[in-house]
């Protein structure tokens, strides 16, 4: 029994890890794009971007999963995700990337705007281009500022992956819960908690290490 449960939980946790990794991979660059959009000089870009961020941050991730997965099929009569397991997984990842990118974008925006104007101007009078100023002057200071709040989001993301079950992507809690019905045992659920704890503990250590690495300068 123990072997069966562990195998099932491992499979579920692997799914959660995939969503976690892909969300970070897609969400961080997209978050930067959205951040620049929300700081744009052009109202025509800034306004829609800010509205989208408001909607995404203002509604539950669970609702977004349901709408993104079922919406196209019911509203457009065309289920762009396909009915398969893979399709549901893709829909989940897309939703997560978009949702987390919006949260990230606000953190990035705060980080970028928090760099004193004088830093940029010092780069300008040295004849640096805007791109050079961003990559050589601003970016490192932004990274240092955003590690703690991004760390928070990342830890939240670990646990948010459990939401994908609402569109039947079988992550770890689903896989643990099914033993209540099939075998009448609850300890697999406690076990799922252990997976989360261990993984978020690992991330906490990693984030602490990064923070320490960036300690060589002060902003």
């Amino acid at each position: 029994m123990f072997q069966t449960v562990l195998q099932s939980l491992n499979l579920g946790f692997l799914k959660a890890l995939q969503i976690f990794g892909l969300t970070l991979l897609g969400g961080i660059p997209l978050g930067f794009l959205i951040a620049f959009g929300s700081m744009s000089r052009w109202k025509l870009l800034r306004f829609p971007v800010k509205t989208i961020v408001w909607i995404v941050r203002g509604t539950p991730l669970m609702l977004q999963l349901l709408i993104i997965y079922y919406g196209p099929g019911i509203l457009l009569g065309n289920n762009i995700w396909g009915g398969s397991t893979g399709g549901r997984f893709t829909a989940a990842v897309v939703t997560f990337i978009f949702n987390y990118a919006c949260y990230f974008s606000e953190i990035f925006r705060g980080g970028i705007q928090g760099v004193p104007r004088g830093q940029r101007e010092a780069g300008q009078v040295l004849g640096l281009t805007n791109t050079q100023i961003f990559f050589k002057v601003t970016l490192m200071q932004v990274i240092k500022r955003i590690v703690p709040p991004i760390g928070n989001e990342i830890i939240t993301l670990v646990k948010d992956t459990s939401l994908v079950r609402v569109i039947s992507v079988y992550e770890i809690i689903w896989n643990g819960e099914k033993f209540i019905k099939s075998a009448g045992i609850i300890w697999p659920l406690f076990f799922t908690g252990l997976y989360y704890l261990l993984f978020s503990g690992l991330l906490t250590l990693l984030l602490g290490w990064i923070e320490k690495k960036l300690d060589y300068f002060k902003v």
Partner: protein
Amino acid sequence: MALLEVKNLQKSFGELEVLKGISFSMEQGENLSIIGPSGGGKTTLLRCLNFLEIPTGGSIAVGGRTLFDASDAKTVSEREIRRNRLHFGLVFQNFNLFPQYTALENVALALKLQAKSEAGNGAARKEINARIDAQCAELLGRVGLGDKLDFYPHQLSGGQQQRVAIARALALRPEVLFFDEPTSALDPELTGEVLRVIRKLAEEKMTMVIVTHEMGFAEAVSDQVLFIDGGLIAEQGSPEQVFRNPQSERTRQFLGSYR
């Protein structure tokens, strides 16, 4: 011929007219001090001369060549402005060193980026970078920080940071070096070490424009003094004239507050 010639420079922010027409010129090796009350337009003038603000009127010429003319759209493109900035260097009141770089890296950054866009990434660049490092280390030596090359800004005192900032500005060999209240953020003890560096540059005939509240210093090192108030030059002349024998009532009143 004048090295720097500023004609009728104007700057408005919306309705607010900060500079109402400033004209002055200076020769190579000259040292010009700008004094005056806060809000009078001194800092805006320096920012305009370094194109951190784009003037709304007037012209700026270096060595007889017009860098900027508000009535000529060609001279106000971003690319043109970036190139023209390199004629000038600016030392800020708050130093604005890059915190993630050591003193040496701060001084060398712009030169290395220039070398990169010119020489690419080949083996030659390593050699160029080594030469830049040596050159910048020497500059830091000249401002008395030869033993602080690998220190980060937060490990340095305010006076040391400002001296690194001066070295950073000098690294690009500007024709004119501008100082925006370089000692205003420093306590009196640290002010001295920065002023000594500026005085040394003056002796080496560096062309400099210094916005300052250090009247004694301005009187001692300047060849020319401008008193700016309300966006206009209220008094202009040799330090002797401006400090000992001011013509305008406003100047007398302002200088009186320092006695």
